C-alpha cells in the first residue's frame, strides 16, 4: 500500500515523459527537427507556417540573462551578509522574511512588472514597449534573489569554523575571510543555487506571459516585446486548439525542449549540492 503511494511519483515522471515526447515525436514526423532547431521564424498559425523555435529560445534566454544579472549578485551579497555578518538573532528574522518574498505567487510579480516596473523604466527615460523583456527580467530577478540567498547561505553555513579561524589567525580581515575563504569553500553550493535560479527563470510562466508579450521576436533588444517558450505554451494551451492538430502538437514540441533544458540544469544542481555535502560532513 505504501509502495503504491511511492509509485505515484514514478507514474508522474513516466506520465510527463510520455505526455511530452509522444506528441513531440509526431510533430517531428511532420516538421523536420533541423528546421525546428535552426529556423529563425516562429509562426505556427500562418500560411505558410514556420516552425523555427529560435525566436522563442532567444526570448527565454534574454529574460533569463536579465533575471540572473539581478538575482545572482544581490542574492550572493545577501547570503554573505546573513552568513558572515548578521547576528544569529537578526538572521533568524531576516531569513524567513526574505523567504516570504519567495512565497508570493508569480501572477503577483507579473502584475508588478506590467503596471509598475514598465512605468518606472519609462519615468527613468528608458523607451520600453508596453510589453518588454527588460521589465519581466528585472522583476523575475527580484523574485529569484531569495532562492539564491537562501541556498547560498546554507552552503556557507556548511563551511567549517576552523577554516575561518585559521584565516583570522593569519591576520586576515573579515572581508578577506568572506571573499577568499568562505565563498571559495562554498563555491559548489553557490553555483548550484545559481543553476537552480536559472532553471526557475527558464520555466517561469506568468511573469513572461503577462509582462513580456506574446509575439515571437528574434531580438536581443530588451526594450522590445518578445515571447518566451513558456508564454507560447500557456497562450496556445489556453486557446481551444483541436486535439491532434499541428498547433496542438507544437505545445508538446516546445514543452519537450523546455523540459530537457530544465532537466539538464536540475541534474547539474543536484550533483553540485551532493558534492559539497560530501566534502564537509
Amino acid at each position, binding site marked *: 500500500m505504501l509502495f503504491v503511494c511511492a509509485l505515484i511519483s514514478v507514474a508522474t515522471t513516466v506520465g510527463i515523459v510520455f505526455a511530452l515526447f509522444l506528441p513531440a515525436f509526431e510533430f517531428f514526423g511532420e516538421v523536420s527537427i533541423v528546421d525546428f532547431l535552426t529556423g529563425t521564424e516562429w509562426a505556427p498559425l500562418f500560411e505558410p507556417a514556420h516552425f523555427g523555435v529560435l525566436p522563442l529560445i532567444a526570448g527565454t534566454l534574454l529574460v533569463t540573462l536579465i533575471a540572473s544579472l539581478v538575482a545572482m549578485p544581490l542574492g550572493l551579497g545577501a547570503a554573505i551578509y546573513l552568513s558572515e555578518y548578521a547576528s544569529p538573532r537578526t538572521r533568524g528574522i531576516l531569513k524567513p522574511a526574505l523567504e516570504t518574498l519567495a512565497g508570493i505567487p508569480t501572477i503577483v510579480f507579473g502584475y508588478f512588472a506590467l503596471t509598475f516596473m514598465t512605468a518606472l523604466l519609462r519615468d527613468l527615460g528608458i523607451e520600453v514597449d508596453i510589453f518588454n523583456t527588460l521589465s519581466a527580467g528585472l522583476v523575475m530577478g527580484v523574485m529569484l534573489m531569495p532562492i539564491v540567498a537562501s541556498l547560498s547561505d546554507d552552503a556557507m553555513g556548511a563551511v567549517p569554523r576552523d577554516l575561518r579561524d585559521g584565516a583570522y589567525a593569519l591576520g586576515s580581515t573579515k572581508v578577506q575571510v568572506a571573499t577568499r575563504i568562505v565563498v571559495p569553500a562554498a563555491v559548489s553550493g553557490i553555483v548550484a543555487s545559481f543553476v537552480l535560479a536559472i532553471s526557475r527563470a527558464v520555466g517561469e510562466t506568468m511573469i513572461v506571459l503577462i509582462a513580456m508579450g506574446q509575439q515571437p521576436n528574434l531580438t536581443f533588444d530588451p526594450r522590445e516585446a518578445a515571447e518566451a517558450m513558456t508564454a507560447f505554451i500557456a497562450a496556445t*494551451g489556453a486557446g481551444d486548439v483541436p486535439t491532434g492538430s499541428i498547433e496542438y502538437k507544437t505545445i508538446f514540441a516546445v514543452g519537450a525542449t523546455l523540459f530537457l533544458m530544465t532537466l539538464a540544469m536540475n541534474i547539474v544542481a543536484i550533483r553540485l549540492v551532493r558534492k559539497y555535502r560530501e566534502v564537509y560532513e
Partner: protein
Amino acid sequence: MSSRALKGGAFKALLLLSLTIGFLMLVVLLVDVFRDGLPYLDMALLTNPPSSDPDIAGARPAILATLYIGVLLLLFVVPIGVGTAVYLEEYADRTKWYNRLLEINIQNLAAVPSIVYGILGLAFLVRGLGLGRVLLAGAMILTLLVLPTVIIAAREAIRSVPDSIRQGAYALGATQWQVVSRQVLPAAIPGIATGSILALARAIGETAPLIMIGAVTYISFDPTILGPFTALPIQIYSFLRLPQEEFKLLAAASIIVLLAILLTLNAFAIWLRNRYRRTW
C-alpha cells in the same frame, strides 16, 4: 581610519545594500498593489460574479473554486505524500536500486517547471481520460505539482522522531506497523501539518498549470467539482487581459484577497510549528 577598515565598511555596506534592495522591492510591490486595489476591495468583489461592468464585477466563483481546490488537494496530497514518506523512511532498503531511483526521481520532480505539469494535465486528464476542463482535473494536477514538497517535508518530520522511541515500542512487542502508526506518525504530525499547509499555499497561488487545463474562461456561476471552473489567480490574469484600466485595479483588489489567504495559511503553519515544536 585605516584603508583596511575602510574597505571592510564599504564591503559590509554593499552586502547590506543587496539585502535592502530585496526588502525594498517587497515593500514597493505591496504598496503598489494596495494603492491600486484598495478602492475596489469591497463586498461586491467577494459576492458578485465577474461582469463587463467593473463597478459590479466580482470574483465569487473564482474564490469558491480556489477553496474547493484547496480542500480536494489536501484530501489527495496528504495520504499519498505521507504514505510515500513512511515507505522511504521506515520500510525502504536504501541499498536497493529502485529505492535510490525513487529518491532521485522525487528530487527531480520538485524542480520540473509548473507549466510542464499543465501539459501533463492537458494531455492525460483533460483530453486523454476525457475528464474535460473541470475543477477535479485542476485539483489533481496541483496535487502532483506539490506532492514532492509534501513528501520531503513529511520525510524530515519522520526522520526527526528519535530511534529510541521506535526501539522502546519494539521492546514492548509492537509490530513494525504498530510502531509506525501509533508512535512515529503521531509524533511527526506537527511537521507533516506544517509542510502540507505550506504546500497548499504554494498550490493556491499557482496559475500556469490551470491555464493549460482551460481555466481561463468566463464563469458567472458557483463552481462544482465536475464542472468548468476558474480559480482566483486565473481570475486575476483574466482581469489583467481586459483593456479597461478599471479591470487592472480589480486585479489588484483580487491580488489583495489572494495574498490575504496565503498570509493566513503561512501564519497558521508558523503557529503550528512553534506551538507543537518538541525537542527530544
